[in-house]
Structures are given as structure tokens and as C-alpha cells.
């Protein structure tokens, strides 16, 4: 059985950043990454972007590492392999294909999977989703010949895919359970801005609606909606969200909640086991409560922080998570914790002239999160105010004006 000083489960940005950081700190220890995909590290956030998903640029442009990088850094990439069990007492991970591995220190960086769509007919040819590179290849192939798409879900990936579909002149009907776009991540006003954007570009939106059956004899020819309407289509793009792959860890005794529970050092409840990336439910030192956030930048920060802790350098994870999404020339930005919970004040900063909007969430006089449309220039300032826990109580009355300069709230400015 192979034994590694550092074993990393997951070859995405969290796991690979961890391996890279470990190697920088430790030139001699053995490091291995187990990945269930057959690829070296690639940019997941690019998979839904115009330029890539419409087939304009070569597929190779999504790769961030090649095999030579793993070889040069003496990082063993065990690809196409799934971890199926963990025995922390024996310091052993069971792998698919009988290639079990022992470790001194283990990092769980599995990321998330696309949620399985369980509606009748979901197995038919022409029902597609997007999580990994191979999913993207299937989409690009479908986009070459298909003309009528049903797009399901009102997340950011849908928003980006809608632009790709329209740029390829594919008829697009968006079916969403929500009453407005991205409810409740965005406010209703913001969701309506995105909807107008989509509709202006020819996307038909079915709100508060669900597909109850995918029609067709083995191959998709249409969908049936909850209200009995039948829509013709030749592909269905199911972008209904994510699930956390933690089932394989149930028998290990590791503390699980929605994800893998860790402290601010990304240590799990088991000795010598850390967690990083989208499936980590870490103690957020900024919010002072357990938090999960699936974003590229956060996953990379977690990979780095976990690796430092694995080498014995105690390092707190302290990040304000942000992400942006672009579609049809509009940008959505999110930073911090955007849950509208009891006790939180909401301030809307709206400027209809330039079609921009910003919603601030405030708790105990401190900004904890924000959603932003077409005002991303405010993203960094807001993130800093969140991180530094600047008390903005004195300015609450003025902040509702879109003209109020948030930078004046930063103490050092």
C-alpha cells in the first residue's frame, strides 16, 4: 500500500493550491493528490464563460497545470480515482480500484457535485448539466447542432450560460422555481434587473414554475411544466445547484453538518485531518459563526491556509468571500454573508440612471455582506469594511444614497 506524508483528496483549486503551498514549505515530504477527474487542474470558473463555452477558444486554454508541473514538483497525481472511505485511526483512505493509501496528514478538498435532477425523464439523451470539464465538452458538442434549449435554475451559472446560448442564436426558455431571479440570494429589485437583462436578449422566463417531466423517446423532444404546458426543445440544461459529497465520510466518525465541520484553522474533528474548499463548513472569524462559501477565491485561500496548518504553522482562515458573474454586459457581485436574517438591517443603494444597485446587510452597526449589480467598483471597499468590522452606525442615514461614497467609511482614507 502506498504511503504519503501528505495525502490530498480532491484535485481542484483548493487541493492543488494546498499541494503547491506544501511543496514550497517542504521540499522533501511525499505529496499525493487523489482526483476523481482524469484531468490536471483546470479553471472551473471558466467553464460557463462566453469565449470558452461557445467553443471560440481551444479547450486547452482552461488548464492551469500540466503533467510536467506535477512531475517537477514531485506531486503524485492519482487521477480518475475516488475516495470511498476513511479510517483515521489507521490513517488510511480507501480508494476506488483497490489503490488504498496511507497518510501522515490528510486534506479533504473534494469540492461539490452537481445536484442530481430526479424528475421523470431526466436520464434522456439531451439532458445536460455543468460541473466539470467533461460536462462542458458535452455542452459545446450539443450547442453545435441544437436550436431550442430549456435552461433550468436561476443561479449565476444559468445567467452566464444564457448569454452563451443567445450568442449562438439558440432559442432559450428559462424555467425557475423562484418568483424572481436568484431568490433569495439577490433582492427582488436586483433579480428583476437581471430578468429584464435576460428578456431584452430574447430569453423567455417562466417564473415560479417547474419541469415535471422530460418528454421524448430516449432523446429529449420537449418538457412538461407543472401547469400542464408542453414546450418543445432539443436540449435541457439542468443547473439546479450543488450537493455536498460527504456520504463517504459518514462511517469515519468525522464531525459533519451540511459540510465537513472545521475550526478557524481548518482542522476537522479527527486528528491529522484537515478540510479545504467548497465542502468545508469552517468557523468564520469575521462572522463569528460556522460558514460555507463556494467560490474560487475562497477555495484557493482555504487550500493555502490548510497547507500552512498542516506544516505546523498555525494560521487562521480570515477571508471575506466574494464572487462576480457576468452576463450580457452586466455584472453581479456578492461579498460576505448576504443572508437576510432577523436583526439585520438592509440598505439599498439604487441608481436607475446607470442601472446599478447595491444592497448592504448590516448587523450590530457593521456591514456583514452585500449584493451588487453594475457597481462592482464598490466591492473591494465593502469587503474591507466587512473584514475590518468598521462600525458605520453614524452614517446609516446617508448610506442609502447611491451618491454616498462608501470609501469615506474606511478609517485610513
Amino acid at each position, binding site marked *: 500500500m502506498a504511503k504519503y506524508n501528505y495525502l490530498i483528496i480532491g484535485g481542484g483549486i483548493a487541493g492543488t493550491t494546498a499541494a503547491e503551498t506544501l511543496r514550497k514549505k517542504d521540499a522533501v515530504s511525499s505529496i499525493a493528490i487523489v482526483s476523481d477527474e482524469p484531468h490536471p487542474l483546470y479553471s*472551473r470558473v471558466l467553464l460557463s464563460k462566453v469565449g470558452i463555452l461557445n467553443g471560440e477558444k481551444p479547450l486547452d486554454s482552461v488548464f492551469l497545470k500540466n503533467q510536467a508541473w506535477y512531475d517537477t514538483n514531485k506531486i503524485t497525481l492519482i487521477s480518475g480515482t475516488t475516495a470511498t472511505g476513511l479510517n483515521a485511526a489507521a490513517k488510511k483512505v480507501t480508494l476506488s480500484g483497490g489503490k488504498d493509501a496511507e497518510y501522515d496528514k490528510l486534506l479533504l478538498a473534494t469540492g461539490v457535485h452537481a445536484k442530481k435532477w430526479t424528475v421523470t425523464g431526466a436520464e434522456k439523451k439531451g439532458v445536460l448539466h455543468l460541473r466539470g470539464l467533461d460536462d462542458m465538452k458535452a455542452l459545446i458538442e450539443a450547442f453545435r447542432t441544437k436550436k431550442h434549449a430549456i435552461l433550468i435554475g436561476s443561479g449565476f451559472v444559468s445567467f452566464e450560460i444564457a448569454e452563451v446560448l443567445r450568442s449562438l442564436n439558440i432559442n432559450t426558455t428559462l424555467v425557475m422555481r423562484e418568483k424572481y431571479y436568484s431568490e433569495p440570494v439577490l433582492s427582488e429589485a436586483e433579480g428583476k434587473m437581471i430578468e429584464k437583462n435576460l428578456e431584452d436578449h430574447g430569453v423567455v422566463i417562466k417564473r415560479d414554475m417547474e419541469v415535471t417531466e422530460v418528454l421524448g423517446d430516449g432523446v429529449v423532444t420537449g418538457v412538461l411544466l407543472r401547469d400542464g404546458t408542453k414546450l418543445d426543445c432539443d436540449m435541457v440544461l439542468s443547473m439546479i445547484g450543488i450537493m455536498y459529497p460527504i456520504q463517504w465520510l459518514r462511517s469515519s466518525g468525522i464531525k459533519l453538518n451540511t459540510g465537513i465541520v472545521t475550526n478557524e484553522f481548518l482542522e476537522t474533528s479527527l486528528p491529522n485531518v484537515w478540510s479545504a474548499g467548497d465542502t468545508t463548513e469552517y468557523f468564520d472569524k469575521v462572522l463569528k459563526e460556522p460558514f460555507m462559501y463556494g467560490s474560487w477565491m475562497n477555495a484557493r485561500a482555504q487550500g493555502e491556509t490548510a497547507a500552512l496548518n498542516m506544516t505546523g504553522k498555525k494560521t487562521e482562515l480570515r477571508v471575506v468571500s466574494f464572487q462576480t458573474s457576468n452576463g450580457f454586459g452586466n455584472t453581479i457581485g456578492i461579498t460576505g454573508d448576504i443572508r437576510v436574517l432577523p436583526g439585520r438591517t438592509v440598505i439599498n443603494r439604487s441608481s436607475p440612471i446607470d442601472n446599478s444597485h447595491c444592497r448592504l446587510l448590516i448587523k450590530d452597526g457593521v456591514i456583514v455582506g452585500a449584493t451588487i449589480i453594475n457597481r462592482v*467598483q464598490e466591492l*473591494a*471597499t465593502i469587503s474591507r469594511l466587512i473584514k475590518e468590522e468598521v462600525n458605520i452606525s453614524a452614517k446609516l442615514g446617508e448610506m442609502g444614497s447611491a451618491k454616498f461614497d462608501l470609501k469615506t467609511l474606511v478609517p485610513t482614507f
Partner: protein
Amino acid sequence: MANLKEYPRTKEGSNIGKIVVDRDLCIAASSCIAIASETFELDGESKVIVKDANIIDDDTLMMSVEACPTKAIFLFDKNGTQVFPK
């Protein structure tokens, strides 16, 4: 050989003295432009260029390069030490 393009930054009070774009790594994801449209734009080859290295504050600049999915933009401090990626 990396295809690097350097942009000096002379903004007063800034800790960042130079922005460097690796044109081979840039794939026009435009994440940096989404956050700092006053600073970055795409040129005719769909590569990011810096149109104004001094216009934005350090926080926004750091955030815009952190957002890059390919880590194509590097920041250096006034002493020439690389500050991102670390």
C-alpha cells in the same frame, strides 16, 4: 519564455509599484475587468492590458487580481518584491 507585460504604478500612498500581466496565461475571463474596469481592458487579441495603473486603490487592485482564475496578473511592491500571488 513567458510573455510578460509590465505596467509601473506611481499612485501616491500605494504599496504597489508594478502590475505585470502574463499574456500567455490570460484567457479573457474578464474577472479583473468586472472588479476594476477603470484599470483593465481587453486588447484586440483578447488579452488583458492595463489602461490606467494608478486610478484605483490598493484594495480594489488586489481584489481584481485575486479574482483571476488563471493567476495571470502579478503585483509587486515598491521594492520589487512580488506581493501577489504570494
